[in-house]
């Protein structure tokens, strides 16, 4: 009997997709099979709207060991026989419905992606977006999300070292919660999420299976926010203690030769874990659902297969090793049960007490359709990209100081210490640069190396100009990385967009990906993993298109790392990068905060950007720099002020104002950084900058306890500090 409209709606499949399934199978699917297809063909698991676009990203590089889509996370070689793997993933919809558990299980999921591969997770970051905190509901969401990240992450003993938080009206009904995790291991140690070898055993390890998180992939992540309000049962509940035990037990197991593969139960639970592993290994699988330990009575095979109960792993155990594997998990007080076996028939078979309830080819289940559209540029975009400067009143010199204070206190710029002090950012004895600088820096124990990591993504830029916004998302992350003294190695990303069935969000998605691809190619940075979160809209209004980039860089000598704060009285302060034109206030923080406008496209020249990175990395490597801080939100003056606040020391100097004062002080011209250094080193830096074709301007000197820009601003540092520290 063909599936009813209600059935298809429950699993978010279209009639056309249903007909395709019937055609491929040569029959109507069973009820359980339909559930499998619903999950595996969801946007969340199947990437059916985004796959064609994601292929644009470059993923090549000498050091890239695991490319996107191959395993749970991308992996790169950092030399000395060591590898790191990292990935970022969204948990937006669950966090909106139940902020604490939604965010907590987001952390849990991304951590599992890393240790599944045999890598020890050593760092977390979070990229968050909320509506303005003036609304009580947004405060509720933020405190729940931050509490969930802290509650789960702190329990695991993984340092949570950074990220970013931005606020805008468009996120009020659609907060974004993107979690990043990085793990480290030895070259050649990577465990694959793979199943092969007829007669090998399928083991399920960790938590019992309940009804929590039913339809998470098809129901929550593949619908708009409007539809999900009543789907609280689709949010999973986390148990970080269980996860911690799983980390230790699975890493111990990864060192043995008892297994052929390991895969965590994430979105679509047992279904995706088993089908994906079988597909990758080119095998079949035969599962008996009665063997799955449950925490609830009366669960149907359908519910068992689609439950998203957390803290569960599927392990493909070599025949004969099951006793040793079980003993290992017993020692960690974790359940482990044999729930099926690997077959060679290429079929995915599910039995309930021996009776077959699903029997479908693995390669059909795991091959969702790929959709391509030809979106057209939205009419409204043209107008948004123009900015009539004559209609915007410039800042009067006497108001420059008060405008600076206003910007420093703005939620998008001010200190986020009230958030990150709730995260354990030092566990592991690796964190060299703590949260609050441009990028976090972690040293690699027993080597002289360090890695830097950062997340970045400016939704406003992407809203006004999706292509340029995409370019800047990558460029700014790379600039932050270079400011820490690190050479960018690779990126992961989380693409948060609206409903891809509509023209405008799809256009934004395509243009952003094109922009990011362009920047990645020009800067020679591969994309090694990522995640797509679509349907981020409420009542037909989409969020700003928000691609978030997670970038990791390598520092050869940890002692040559750099941070944002000024360090020493008397140091020279220089600007690396050219002057910004008047249009640089476009789509910036100043324009929105002071003039209430979001318009005017930013500009970027990727060659200048690359030159700046080369100059920063070389200068840091030679030990010329005492601090480096990239110019971004709030422009040059905010950058200078932040370097003062972070270093607890003043600045005295001058900013040239040829055209508009606001553009010179607060314009967000790209490809610039403020550095401080020993006055003796200035000549050497200028020569280096000249060779790298980076313009240099001497701005002033680190001095005293005031912030003084000649003729414009003269404020005590304490006043800046208070504004910045108490902004949230």
């Amino acid at each position, binding site marked *: 009997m063909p599936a009813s409209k209600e059935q298809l709606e429950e699993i978010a499949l279209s009639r056309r997709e249903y007909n395709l399934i019937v055609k491929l199978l040569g029959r109507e699917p069973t009820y359980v099979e339909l559930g499998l297809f619903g999950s595996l063909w969801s946007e969340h698991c199947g990437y059916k709207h985004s796959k064609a676009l994601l292929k644009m990203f470059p993923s090549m590089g000498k050091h890239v060991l695991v490319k996107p889509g191959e395993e749970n996370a991308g992996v790169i070689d950092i030399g000395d026989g060591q590898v790191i793997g990292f990935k970022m993933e969204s948990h937006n919809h669950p966090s909106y419905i139940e902020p604490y558990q939604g965010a907590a299980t987001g952390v849990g999921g991304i951590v599992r992606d890393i240790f599944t591969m045999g890598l020890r997770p050593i760092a977390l970051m979070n990229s968050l977006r909320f509506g303005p905190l003036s609304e009580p509901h947004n405060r509720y969401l933020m405190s729940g999300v931050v509490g969930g990240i802290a509650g789960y992450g702190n329990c695991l003993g993984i340092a949570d070292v950074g990220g970013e938080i931005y606020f805008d009206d468009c996120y009020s009904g659609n907060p974004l919660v993107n979690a990043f995790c990085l793990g480290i291991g030895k070259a050649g140690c990577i465990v694959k999420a793979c199943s092969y070898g007829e007669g090998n055993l399928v083991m399920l390890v960790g938590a019992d299976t309940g009804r929590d998180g039913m339809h998470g992939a098809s129901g929550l992540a593949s619908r708009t926010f409007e539809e999900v309000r009543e789907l609280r049962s689709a949010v999973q509940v986390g*148990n970080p203690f269980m996860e911690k035990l799983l980390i230790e037990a699975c890493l111990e197991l990864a060192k043995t030769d008892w297994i052929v593969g390991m895969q965590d139960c994430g979105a679509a639970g047992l279904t995706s874990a088993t089908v994906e592993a079988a597909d990758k290994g080119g095998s079949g699988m035969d599962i008996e659902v009665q063997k799955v330990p449950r925490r609830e009575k009366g669960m149907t095979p359908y519910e068992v297969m689609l439950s998203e109960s957390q803290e569960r792993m599927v392990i493909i155990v070599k025949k004969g090793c099951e006793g040793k594997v079980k003993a290992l998990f017993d020692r*960690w*007080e974790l359940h482990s049960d044999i729930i099926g076996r690997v077959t060679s028939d290429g079929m995915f078979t599910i039995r309930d007490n021996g009776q077959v309830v699903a029997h479908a080819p693995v390669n059909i289940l795991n091959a969702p359709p790929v959709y391509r559209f030809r979106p057209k540029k939205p009419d409204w975009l043209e107008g948004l990209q123009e900015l009539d400067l004559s209609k915007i009143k410039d800042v009067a010199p006497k108001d420059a100081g008060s405008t600076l204070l206003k910007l420093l206190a703005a939620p998008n710029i001010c200190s986020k210490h009230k958030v990150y002090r709730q995260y*354990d950012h030092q*566990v592991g004895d690796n964190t060299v640069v703590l949260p609050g600088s441009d990028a976090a820096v972690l040293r690699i*124990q027993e080597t002289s190396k360090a890695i830097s990591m950062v997340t970045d993504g400016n939704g406003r830029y992407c809203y006004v100009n999706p292509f340029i916004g995409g370019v800047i998302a990558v460029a700014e992350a790379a600039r932050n990385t270079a400011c820490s003294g690190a050479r960018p190695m690779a990126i992961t990303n989380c693409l948060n967009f609206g409903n891809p069935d509509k023209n405008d969000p799809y256009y934004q998605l395509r243009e952003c990906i094109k922009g990011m691809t362009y920047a990645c190619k020009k800067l020679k940075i591969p994309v090694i993993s990522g995640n797509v979160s679509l349907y981020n809209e409420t009542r037909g209004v989409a969020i700003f298109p928000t691609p978030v980039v997670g970038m990791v860089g390598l520092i050869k000598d940890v002692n040559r790392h750099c941070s944002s704060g000024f360090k020493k009285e008397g140091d020279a302060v220089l600007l690396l990068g050219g002057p910004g034109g008047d249009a640089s206030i476009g789509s910036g923080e100043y324009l929105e905060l002071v003039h209430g406008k979001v318009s005017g496209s930013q500009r970027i020249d990727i060659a200048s950007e690359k030159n700046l990175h080369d100059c920063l990395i070389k200068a840091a490597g030679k030990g010329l720099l005492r601090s480096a801080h990239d110019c971004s939100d709030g422009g040059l003056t905010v950058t200078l002020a932040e370097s003062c606040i972070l270093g607890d020391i003043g600045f005295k100097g001058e900013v040239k104002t040829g055209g508009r004062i606001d553009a010179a002080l607060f314009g967000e011209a790209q490809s610039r950084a403020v550095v401080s250094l020993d006055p003796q080193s200035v000549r050497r830096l200028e020569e280096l900058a000249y060779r790298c074709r980076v313009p240099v301007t001497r701005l002033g000197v680190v001095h005293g306890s005031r912030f003084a820009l000649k003729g414009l601003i003269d404020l005590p540092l304490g006043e800046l500090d208070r504004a910045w520290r108490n902004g949230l």
Partner: protein
Amino acid sequence: MKFGIVVFPGTWSDRDCYYSIHNICGQDAVYIWHKDTDLSGCDCIVLPGGFSYGDYLRTGAIARFSPVMDSVADFSKKGRPVIGICNGFQVLCEAHLLPGVLRQNDHLQYRCQWTYLKTVNNTTPFTSKCKKGQVLKIPISHYEGRYYADESVINELEDTGRVAFRYGTPSGEITGEANPNGALNNIAGIVNKQGNVLGMMPHPERSCEDILGSTDGNIIWESLIAGI
């Protein structure tokens, strides 16, 4: 000198303790699984930080029943040094090897930050290398770190010099602002009557190298080494 580092399910600063004791201070260190009871050969027992048993029920309340804890109690009764850090401090209180409890921070939030500890008593085996009143820069990372005990216990601790560390300012002043969790009398660490069991909320194993921002934590291991 040989340190035994106890690992409960959910412990996470075991590896950092091992690193600072072995890699930095050059001492022998072994992990002791919580179900093992043999502490022979160890000169000092470390109960590290973390979330033993997920902090479920109450911090340290389940871990105190682990088989290893009877051995730890015997070890301490022989006058040999035992140090509990963060969750280890909570376990020692639950096991009644130290008086008082660690309650939720007064602001009801987790805190990870640098703190400045004023050494109140530098005659214990854990602080013998500190100068009197020396300020140590050592970070905290906890949700339940507010030391509390009834008045008579607090008075006894104060009168008998059993407060080892207090939270203070970088210059060593004891102020309300410098107290990160609302602990009574800014107490960050205490010792038992015999002086051979120390519990402290801050993490000395994290202050072990300049590159990490401080080496002040090493002074605790060095004091112990000097005492053997």
